[in-house]
């Protein structure tokens, strides 16, 4: 059976450990800035500080709670989150407020990263987590430098006073470092001395990440190829090619004609979009519904049982918006922006905003054109990652290459695919440019 793995499955995990004030954060931010790819995220182990009891919080305010012991962190949660990211799922990273010593009710959602950097003094401490890292880094610095940096940071950003900071350093930070943090340096693949000034070490890290991203791009390409050569017969029952009526032929001709004015193009494309949407709505789940008519008689009809969500694959998918609002005004809308990475040419998810709780909805994905199907496959995967079941996904498109159709239905045999016009060759994108005029 053909399967699809999005590029965010099995992200590259990099652990960056080192003493407090050793310069971990600046090493990480130097790497991130130099790398300049959007699908790299940094998660600080500080986010995983345990929720304190009242008594512990009291002690924390008196600087008597040991934040520098590994027990202060909720390792199980961090491990679960890493496992979920490995499977391509979305996680919600907790936010810890240092001034109140509480976990806030806000979270930061992380989804579909290619590279995940986990940074924190104990990043290499827990054995289960250590095993998940592809690369382990330890940032080393002189203890005096660490104390000086830590003092400045805690006074500026964490609302602590000097006495408290000094007391904490000698009571908790330094002993913990010597006893528990420093020994984890033996697990490191790269030992970074002198922090972010160590360009050799930083360049090594960057090269490593670039290599991993390149490999991912190659894997994606290979996967698309294998979806075309794969011998499994795809399920044609779930493919609907819109009846090629004289009207539909005529409308298609107007869309294909380069001399069509922008005004006409928009008008006629919306007619096509409405026809495609009506076909999509025909495959919704229904239940019996009897009603009484104005003549006092009964009519045995139907009602729809699921709510529907439209998800546009931007920018082109937005060409269906107006037709949707006219046909199903109560429907909620999600957006996915999938762009080709200029370096590798591979499509990448750059932005997503989905309605909450779409798990039980029927989702209609829209994109007026399907070529290689790389973006379509990715969009379908995003829906599955958000708990939508495959059979509740309807994908509508106007022009789709036969190759793209085959790839989609091989990778996701249960989705419903509705196509206006199948094409023998891949047609370069033009509908969005004509519709939006840019």
């Amino acid at each position: 059976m053909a399967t699809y793995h999005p590029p965010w499955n099995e992200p590259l995990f990099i652990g960056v450990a080192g003493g407090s004030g050793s310069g971990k954060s600046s090493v990480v931010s130097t790497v991130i800035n130099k790398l300049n790819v959007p699908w790299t995220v940094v998660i600080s182990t500080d986010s995983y500080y345990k929720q304190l009891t009242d008594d512990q919080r009291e002690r924390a305010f008196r600087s008597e709670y040991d934040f520098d012991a590994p027990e202060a962190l909720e390792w199980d949660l961090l491990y679960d989150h890493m496992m979920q990211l490995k499977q391509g799922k979305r996680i919600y990273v907790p936010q810890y407020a240092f001034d109140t010593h509480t976990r806030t009710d806000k979270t930061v959602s992380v989804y579909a990263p290619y590279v995940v950097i986990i940074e924190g003094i104990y990043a290499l401490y827990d054995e289960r987590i250590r095993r998940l890292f592809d690369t382990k880094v330890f940032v080393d610095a002189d203890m005096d430098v660490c104390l000086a940096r830590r003092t400045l940071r805690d006074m500026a950003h964490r609302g602590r006073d000097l006495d408290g900071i000094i007391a904490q350093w000698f009571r908790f930070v330094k002993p913990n470092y010597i006893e528990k943090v420093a020994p984890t340096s033996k697990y490191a693949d790269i030992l970074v001395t002198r922090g972010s000034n160590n360009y050799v070490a930083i360049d090594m890290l960057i090269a490593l990440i670039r290599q991993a991203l390149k490999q991912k791009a190659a894997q994606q390409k290979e996967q698309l190829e294998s979806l075309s050569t794969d011998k499994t017969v795809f399920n044609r029952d779930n493919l609907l090619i819109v009846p090629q009526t004289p009207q539909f032929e005529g409308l298609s001709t107007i869309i294909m004609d380069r001399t069509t004015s922008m005004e006409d193009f928009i008008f006629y494309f919306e007619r096509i979009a409405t026809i495609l949407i009506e076909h999509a709505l025909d495959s919704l789940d229904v239940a019996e519904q009897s009603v009484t008519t104005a003549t006092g008689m009964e009519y045995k009809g139907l009602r729809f049982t699921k709510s529907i969500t439209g998800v546009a694959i931007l920018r082109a998918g937005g060409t269906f918006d107006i037709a949707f609002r006219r046909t199903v005004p109560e429907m909620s809308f999600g957006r996915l922006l999938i762009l080709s990475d200029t370096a590798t040419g591979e499509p990448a998810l750059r932005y997503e905003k989905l309605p909450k709780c779409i798990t039980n909805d029927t989702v209609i994905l829209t994109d007026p054109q399907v070529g290689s199907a790389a973006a379509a496959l990715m969009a379908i995967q995003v829906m599955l990652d958000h708990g939508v079941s495959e059979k509740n996904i309807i994908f509508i498109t106007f022009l789709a290459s036969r190759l793209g159709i085959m790839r989609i239905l091989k990778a996701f045999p249960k989705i419903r695919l509705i196509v206006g016009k199948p094409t023998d060759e891949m047609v370069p994108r033009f509908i969005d440019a004509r519709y939006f005029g840019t």
Partner: protein
Amino acid sequence: MVSFTESLDYTAPGLIILPQTPQLIGLYTKIRDINTSRNEFVFCSNRIIRLLVEEGLNHLPTKEHTVTTPTGETYNGVSFEGKICGVSIMRAGESMEMGLRDCCRSVRIGKILIQRNEETAQPTLYYDKLPEDISIRYVMLLDPMLATGGSAGMAIEVLKERGVPEDRIIFLNLIACPEGIQCILKKFPSIKLVTGFIDKGLNDKNYIAPGLGDFGDRYYST
């Protein structure tokens, strides 16, 4: 298995019934329900009307037409032939004009007002205003309910008197019944009749049953 009542399966030359999809049945369920709000009635009717218009337009001629695509390829398509106009039978037919305009932006629309004479129970022509060149156009005749076929028959007579050939008339209608269809297709065998649903028949007040009552009253809230 979900069961529901679909349109009578009635075949006649020139008669086209929309495919009885779950979506269409769902829309009909809404507009038939006496408890449906007016907003929803209007919205669901408009969606059915749009489907009727799209189907009606399929019966216009096309001819082969080759174009160059924005990407520089040649595309062998078709172009629409023939001028059209809409003619609504007042007042219920006017509710279908928007659906027609949604597909054909600046289409000309003529009107025919026919009322039933209370004494004779016969339909009488009160008023008409039609495009002057109607004889060279295809006519989309609009009337949501086809009951006895009295008014529709009279409207078609008017169109024929103005020189419109029968085979250029496409009659769009939401709910019909066998009596009305027989009446129209017997008198005008060459017209196209596009309907979304054929009900069982007429009740003793000559309303379509189960029907949905008076379409104009529900659409215009009178």
